[in-house]
């Protein structure tokens, strides 16, 4: 074969592989949204779920998913940002940082059921947090950390060293250089990390069954006191998320409309993830433009 032919063949092969991936994605998205969309109604989104009779909604589960995501990010983002800055900007290349990196990788490959059971034993039982959003958020932090740390570290690394030299040669301290120059430049990458980890939080079920629980008590959305037991802001209440709800309806649901509930809930889950994804990117682009004066 001539080099020209090899080049053509390779290009075609790559195009084919990409087409396969795109087709799988389109098929999955299309199937979930098309089969779930007819079941989504205002009533479905705004009424509480019911255990036995038909016509239950997903209002509380949807809110729980979002609330859990926010709590998880509040806990995991500062931790991840700090460790990523340490690993990328301060740590030398030695056995100690190697150990940290290996530990982070091991953490990311833990099966979620194991993390769930660990969270159950430690937070739910030992620390008396009970089945609660807080227990769930801490367990999810374990998943989130490796993903966030690695992606933030990667995006900090991608900022050229010439930027660090520029800051330091201008008389900026190390920290001012990081805060004022490196972090803004790395913002788009950091945001991608948050979006990826958010997807995992939305979709996680196994770890939450043991930590955030499988029940969704009736919530009062007008009670803004996070200490009240029926307040939607109370982090100590059990909270079934959308993904857990889908799992439960499918495995032990006795409502006659279980199939349509799970189809609708799946579609809502996907749509919410898409909205979060595009929204976060739009906000990130806006911030990046504002900080960097556009292009």
């Amino acid at each position: 074969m001539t080099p020209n032919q090899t080049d053509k063949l390779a290009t075609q092969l790559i195009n084919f592989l990409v087409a396969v991936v795109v087709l799988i994605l389109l098929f999955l998205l299309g199937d979930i949204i098309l089969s779930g969309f007819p079941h989504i109604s205002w009533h479905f989104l705004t009424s509480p779920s019911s255990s036995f009779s038909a016509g239950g909604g997903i209002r509380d589960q949807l809110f729980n998913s979002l609330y859990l995501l926010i709590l998880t990010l509040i806990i995991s983002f500062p931790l991840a940002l700090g460790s990523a800055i340490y690993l990328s900007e301060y740590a030398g290349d030695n056995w100690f940082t190697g150990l940290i990196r290996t530990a982070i990788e091991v953490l990311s490959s833990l099966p979620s059921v194991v993390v769930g059971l660990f969270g159950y034993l430690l937070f739910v039982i030992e620390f008396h947090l009970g089945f609660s959003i807080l227990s769930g958020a801490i367990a999810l932090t374990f998943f989130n950390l490796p993903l966030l740390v690695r992606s933030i570290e990667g995006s900090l690394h991608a900022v050229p060293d010439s930027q660090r030299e520029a800051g330091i040669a201008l008389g900026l301290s190390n920290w001012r250089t990081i805060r004022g120059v490196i972090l803004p430049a790395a913002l788009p990458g950091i945001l991608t990390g948050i979006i990826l980890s958010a997807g995992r939080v939305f979709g996680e079920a196994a770890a939450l069954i043991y930590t955030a629980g499988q029940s969704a008590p009736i919530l009062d959305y007008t009670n803004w006191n996070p200490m009240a037991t029926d307040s939607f802001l109370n982090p100590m209440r059990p909270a079934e998320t959308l993904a857990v709800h889908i799992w439960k309806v499918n495995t032990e649901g006795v409502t006659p409309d279980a199939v349509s509930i799970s189809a609708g809930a799946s579609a809502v889950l996907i749509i919410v993830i898409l909205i979060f994804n595009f929204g976060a990117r739009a906000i990130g682009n806006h911030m990046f433009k504002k900080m960097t004066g556009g292009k």
Partner: protein
Amino acid sequence: MTAILLTKNVHLSYGKKEALHGIDLDFDEHGITALIGPSGCGKSTFLRCLNRMNDLIPRTTVTGTFNFKGQDIYAPTTNLVELRKQIGMVFQQPNPFPFSVYENVTYGLRLTGHKDRQFLDEQVERSLKQAAVWDEVKDDLNKSALSFSGGQQQRICIARLLAVQPDIILLDEPTSALDPISSAQIETTLLALKNEYTIIIVTHNLQQASRIADKTAFMLNGNLVEFDLTSKMFTQPEQQDTSDYLNGKFG
């Protein structure tokens, strides 16, 4: 001429390998000194000693005397932030921050607590004019510095440095990544600055050194071979090595 920066017996090693074998160089206040020599002769390494940029490279040891206006640059009590404000640096690759031109130039000033908008505006105009890039960017001060050409970016970097009013400007091959026209503009800029600032420039380009430098130092394999007035060195070099290098026999 009074010397503003005196160095004596400068040795530098990366790990076990010694890269500078005892350099003595004094730099006069105001004016341009060029450091020339073939690749790997240690000229950039020496330059980076002067504002302690080599501190960033692990396992680097520097010995010798560095006297800047009566103060020891390598004294344990030296405030690096202050030092680098007084001895600023421009690099081979233009490296403006990914912010607007205005923010690039005012960055150092705002760090030191200057907030007055009018003062900042004046400094931006003064610095950009001194760096001879004002006319090209004055209508686009809020545009990202990265959207300008390489030569303009490099002059924005010079303006960013001038805004904090350093005593000494170190330039590490500032034009080697630029086209001839941009290089010529940078040279004009430097010539205009030399009456107010002490400029030390590392360059590969012998013509550049002969065009702009008052004094030139020729380095070879980590040693200083010759240091003299540029006009003298380029016409009557004292060392055979210098003559050979200037005549293109090696390098």
